[in-house]
């Protein structure tokens, strides 16, 4: 739980990077 809490401040940025990566994957595969 403590480890998870340490990640929390960075979570939105991790999520944004993941969203960007998934978006790029979609463009390459489905466009």
């Amino acid at each position, binding site marked *: *739980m403590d480890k998870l*809490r340490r990640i*929390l*401040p960075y*979570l*939105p*940025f991790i*999520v*944004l990077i*993941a*969203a960007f990566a*998934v*978006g790029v994957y*979609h*463009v390459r595969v*489905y*466009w």
Partner: protein
Amino acid sequence: MNEASPRSKETSLAKEFFLQQLPLIATVFGCGFASAYLQHGFLPGADIAFPLAGVRVPLWHLVWMGVWTGYTMAIVGEAAGIFALPYTMSVLQFANPHVTPTTQLLTFINPVGALFGFFQNRQWNLDFALWVCLGGVIGGLIGPFVRLTLLSDTKPFTFAVGLALLFAGVHLTYAASRGFLKKGPVGGIEAKFRAEAKSRQAAGLSPSGLPGTIAIETVARGGGRLTVSFWGETWTLSQPFLFVTGAGVGVISAALGVGGGFMLVPIFSAIYGLPMYVLVAATIPYVIVLSAVGLFTYGVIMPALIGTSIQPEWAWGFFAAGGGIFGSWCAAKTQRFVPEHFLKLMLGGITGIAGCLYVIDFFFTLPFRL
């Protein structure tokens, strides 16, 4: 048992998720599967294109879109629509008129969980919400016709979305810069909020900052004016202004397919100085009412009046909304651990740049596809 003990906090969090959120998310996903078979007779996704959208998208991607837009935008106090709409248009390539009611389905379902939360927290005032929501009804009735006439082509539509994104981007960046600059002592609700959070933390409780016993109360009503109070502060609001603002924002939002909170929040906080804790009493019901009326107009009123309907991709909207509910819930639970102003600046930048690109694309041909 001590409320502060980590184990009890974990248990209550898990209990809340499994008893409140999971059934809601499961129901929305169930609606997604059911609506796909009812609307199309099959389940579209990665292999078979969504018939109205005309694109292939894996279902997990729709859920993921809901999760990340709901999470990031809820952390900075916005709704998923203003982020999900450009992502749907530019990355998923769903930019025909059906995208508008589809995103409105997302903005309709997403805030329902938040509405229950605010109701339990007594951040609720029907007198305040009524006039804004009535304006939203008018907006939800007119907006879809604007979409069908003025914004029926992709170019003017993306231009209008670009302007909305620019507005949201500027607002987020401005809010972030104010947050960075506000280092000194603060007054009003903000000071009380901080003091309460500090005392709760000292007592070993979660620093939620809002004592759940304080309600938004109507102090006076009549002559076109409404006075509301919250935590010792009062604000006098003009009912015609609430109505006209609700209607104006509603027309734009229903024409684009967003919730409208992104415009309503900066307008009300700039003109009346209303804090976010009070604003949500009007904006959350507003987004739900506006989206519901917008969906009804697109699907029922439009075909009855002019014989043309713009149906949403129901399954698309439900799957994204299911992810959105989870994302917004995560945001509500983790918001206090996140550097909010920095995130606002980053999201404001991304939104503003996307808006600029859409606007530029209307006048000049960009070397890439939007």
